[in-house]
């Protein structure tokens, strides 16, 4: 067992943050380990928010970061 940070997303489901590289978050649904997704961390007014990615290019960049780190 290991303790991981969880976030609640737009589907009201909780996701574990498996890894955080640069500002990208690699997440898996706490109830379904086949449900994986990637988000980015955005800092606004001193608080951290989780946001979807802007484009497929950004998704590929996030995956590339994952593969090389």
């Amino acid at each position, binding site marked *: *067992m*290991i*303790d*991981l*940070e*969880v*976030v*609640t*997303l*737009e589907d009201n489901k*909780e996701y*574990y943050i*498996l*890894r955080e590289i640069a500002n990208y978050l*690699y997440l*898996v649904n*706490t109830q379904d*380990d*086949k*449900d*994986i*997704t*990637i*988000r980015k*961390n*955005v800092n*606004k007014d001193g*608080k*951290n*928010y*989780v*946001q*979807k*990615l*802007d*484009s*497929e290019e*950004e*998704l*590929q960049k*996030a*995956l*590339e970061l*994952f*593969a*090389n780190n």
Partner: protein
Amino acid sequence: MENMEITQDTIIYYDKATGRVLSPEELREKWNMAVLNGGHTDITIVSSPAKNLIIEDGIVKDRVNQTVGDLLAQSAKQKAEMDAQTADFQSLLNSSEKAESSLTDIDNPDYIINILENAKLKSSMDDYAHIADSSIAVKDEPLPSYERMGQRKSIKYPSFTKGLVKIATVATILGVSLSLANVAAQNISSTNRYNSAVKYIEEQYEEDGRNFVNRNKHIIEGSFDSYGHPIYFIDNEAVAKDILAVPDEGYLGALYMAYEQMGNDRANGEYDNWDDTIGFIGSLVDETHPKAYLTTAGCKSFDEFLIKAGYVDEKSKEPSVEMFKTAGKQAVIDFANFLQEDNITVGGR
């Protein structure tokens, strides 16, 4: 034994089955038995990666009070799941190979790479589509965002690792790494085709030059130890030595040697199928330090291990020039001290 916390600098030796910490005498006896038995040992050596462990009344446990036996059971379950995934992949590859083998030259590297590319595309296409759908915002709609509250929850290792493996596989599909292609290459029974694929990868490596980013191209399989730390199997000695020069990743180099030794055994008619191969490597998965791989790497003594690992020059028996170049003098001194502190007699040393 007093209760103690394992820190980054702690090295302990314990029995896998019970988690009980071994006395120096027991350790020496087990080690000598391992040498006599041709390299098989049930000693587990834990070092810096095992920061989550504690020793309580002489028994090694993790912070949620699981025994080492519990951890190993989790590791075995995880390995079974990964074996099942490998079997699925093999099945997919076989069907792809069958469809095309009558039309093409099986010794043609381009053909092999083609098969591998097709196979990994098929196996990861659904995962990629899912990640893309769930990760990318719909165009022209306002971006929802959710505050991170810092809340934490416990997760079991198998779930933890499966998610990472999925993402890594999808990353591979984009051509970032050739790792999956290398796994597939080994799944093909033909030695000629396997050698062709490895040659192709090594040529790529020469073009890239030696650096840590490009080493990813030589990772033939990713796995995880029982603590959730990544372990990679790599196919290139130079890359293994590069990695060996990084203290926290030294065990990767030892893994390479175990793999290399296994390759020799395969050439001699042993380990002639992928199941045996996975089983052989899988037996190493819960180990976390090069010394743990000493026996399985086919070395008969520490001296031989040091030479194979590149720490010591074979002729002069002095710390190798290459090691000084890559890791610096202090790293060699640290490693020598590390051996001295153990105060163990092994293989005539």
